[in-house]
C-alpha cells in the first residue's frame, strides 16, 4: 500500500486533482457557514456583474440571488448526487457482476442478459424517462443516475472475477475448504478492488455531468440549487449575463476534471505495476 501512495504522489496530475477536489469539498462543507441564509435568498438587484459589488464576488442572478452562494450549495448537491449514485450503482453492479462471473452457467447468462438489457436502452434517454416518471426529486434523480450507470460496473466486475477465478489462489482456497461466499468476498473481490475504485472515481464524474444535464432539461429538483440548474436557468440570459452560466459550467468542469485526474492517477498507481510484478 505504501508503494501505492508513493507512486500516486509522484503523479502531478493526480495531486492537482486531489487539490481541486479538496477545494470543492471544502466549499461544499463550509457553504452553510459562509452563506447562512441559503442560496435562494434574494439579496440584491438582479444581474449584478461579478467582481463589482462587495460581498457578491460572482454577482447576482436573474432574481437577485447570490451566485457565489448558489455555487457553494451546488457543490454539495453535485458531490452528493455523484457520490450516492455511484455507491448505489456499485451496490447493484458489484454483487451482480461478481455472482455472474463466479458462478457462471445460467446465473451468468441471466445476469448478463439483464445487464445487456439495460445497456440496450440509450442511457440518457432512460434517465430522462425515469426522472420524469418518478418526478424530479434529489432521490429520484440519484436513483435514475444509478440505474443507468451500473451496467458497466457489473461487466467490469464480472470480467475481473472471471479472470481472478482462474487464478490458482482461488483453487487453493477451494481446496482449503472455504465456502464459495468466503472465497468470493474475502479472496476474489479484494483483488478486484483497484479497477473498481478507478471506475468509481470516473463514475462520480459522469454522474455529476448527468445530473447537470438533467437539470438543464428542467428535470432537476426545484428545491435544490445545483450547478446544472444554474446553467439551465441562466441559459435564457446567456447573452446578457454570460457569467451566470459560465461560473457553474466552470465549476462542473473543474470538479469533473479533478475526479478524472484522480481516477487516472489511481489507475496508474494501482494497475500496471501490480500486474507486471506478478509476472516478471
Amino acid at each position, binding site marked *: 500500500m505504501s508503494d501505492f501512495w508513493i507512486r500516486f504522489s509522484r503523479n502531478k496530475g493526480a495531486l492537482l486533482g486531489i487539490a481541486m477536489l479538496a477545494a470543492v469539498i471544502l466549499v461544499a462543507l463550509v457553504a452553510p457557514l459562509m452563506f447562512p441564509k441559503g442560496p435562494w435568498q434574494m439579496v440584491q438587484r438582479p444581474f449584478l456583474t461579478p467582481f463589482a459589488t462587495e460581498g457578491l464576488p460572482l454577482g447576482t442572478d436573474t432574481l437577485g440571488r447570490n451566485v457565489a452562494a448558489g455555487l457553494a450549495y451546488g457543490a454539495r448537491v453535485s458531490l452528493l448526487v455523484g457520490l450516492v449514485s455511484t455507491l448505489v450503482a456499485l451496490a447493484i453492479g458489484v454483487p451482480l457482476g461478481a455472482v455472474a462471473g463466479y458462478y457462471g452457467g445460467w446465473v451468468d447468462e441471466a445476469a448478463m442478459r439483464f445487464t445487456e*438489457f439495460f445497456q440496450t*436502452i440509450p442511457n440518457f434517454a432512460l434517465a430522462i*424517462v*425515469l426522472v420524469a416518471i418518478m*418526478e424530479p426529486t434529489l432521490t429520484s434523480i440519484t436513483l435514475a443516475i444509478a440505474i443507468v450507470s451500473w451496467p458497466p460496473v457489473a461487466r467490469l466486475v464480472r470480467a475481473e472475477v472471471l479472470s481472478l477465478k482462474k487464478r490458482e489462489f482461488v483453487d487453493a482456497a477451494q481446496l482449503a475448504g472455504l465456502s464459495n461466499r468466503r472465497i468470493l468476498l474475502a479472496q476474489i473481490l479484494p483483488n478486484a478492488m483497484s479497477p473498481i475504485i478507478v471506475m468509481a472515481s470516473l463514475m462520480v464524474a459522469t454522474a455529476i*455531468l448527468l445530473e447537470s444535464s438533467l437539470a438543464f*432539461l428542467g428535470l432537476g429538483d426545484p428545491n435544490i440549487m445545483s450547478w446544472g440548474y444554474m446553467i439551465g436557468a441562466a441559459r435564457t440570459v446567456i447573452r446578457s449575463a454570460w457569467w451566470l452560466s459560465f461560473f457553474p459550467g466552470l465549476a462542473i*468542469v473543474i470538479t469533473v476534471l479533478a475526479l478524472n485526474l484522480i481516477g487516472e492517477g489511481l489507475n496508474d498507481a494501482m494497475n500496471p505495476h501490480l500486474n507486471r510484478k506478478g509476472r516478471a
Partner: protein
Amino acid sequence: MAIASTVLGRLLKAAITLLAIVVLNFLLIHAAPGDPAAVMAGEAGAADEKFIAQLRERFGLDQPLHVQLWNYVSNILQLDLGYSYRQGAPVLDLILERLPATLLLTLTAFGISLLFGVAMGVAASARVGKLGDSAITGVALLFYATPLYWAALMAVLVFSVWLGWLPGFGYETVGADYTGLARVLDILKHLILPAATLGLFFMAVYTRMTRASMLEVAQMDFVKTARAKGLPDKVIRRRHILRNALLPVVTLAGLQAGQLVGGAVLTETVFAWPGIGRLMFESLEARDYNTLLGVFLISAAMVILFNIVTDLVYRLIDPRIGATR
C-alpha cells in the same frame, strides 16, 4: 457461413431483448403521472369530463393496462409500431421522418470523434511523457469534463452569434429549396456545430483510450519482434501497434455509436436539430405513449444493430474471433 449463423443467432437474441424492452418501457411509461388525453385537454384551453373520456376512449386508454399491453405487444410482433393520436400519424412514419437527421448528426459526430480521437491518441502515445502528450491529454481531459450542453451553448454564442460564421440551429436553410450539391453543402454547414459539440466528448474518450491502448500494445512481445526485423518505427506503429490497439477502441465505439442515436437529446434541443432525440423528449412531455415507445424501440434496435456491426468489424480486424480452431 459461420458469420451468417452468428448474426442470425444474435438477431434472434436481439429480438427477445427488444421484446423485453418493449414490455418494460410500456410499464415504465404508463407509470408516469398523467396521460396523453390529459395533456391534450390541458392544451386545448378548455375541457370537460366528457371531452377527456372521449379522448381516452379514442386512444384506447380506457381499457385495463394488461389489455393495452397485450394489444401493443401483439401489434409490435406484427411490426406495427402503432399510431400517434397526438400527431395523427403512424409512429413509424414519424420516426422515419426524423431518423435520417439523427443518423446524419450522430454518425458524423461519431466519425469525427473516432477519427480525431484515434489520431490524437496515436499522436499522444508517440510523444509519451513529452509536452505534446501532456497537451493532447490535457485537451482531451478538458473536453471530457465539459458538459455537452454547455459546450453547445458556448459554441452557438461564439460561432453563430459573435462571429456569424455558421448557422446556430436547424437542419438546413428553411425555404431555400436548394437541390443537389447546394443542398448538401447547406446541410453540411448546419451540421458542423452540432456534430462538433456532440463529438467533442467522445473524441476525448477515444483519445484517452487509444493512447492507453497504444502504450499497452507497444509493450507487447510482437512489437519487439517487429523491431528486430528492422521495420521503421512508423510502420511498426501503424501496422503492428495501432491495429492491435484499435480492438478495444472498436468495442467501445460500437457500444457508443448505438447509444448516440438515442442520446443526442441535448444537442438536438440546443441546435434545434429535428431528430428523434427531440421527438423522444417531446413525446415524453406529451405522454404520447406510442411515439415514445416507438422511439425507444428504434433506438434500442439501433444499439443492437451497432453492436452486431461492431462484432462484424471486430471479426474483420481480429481473425481469432469466431474462428473454430
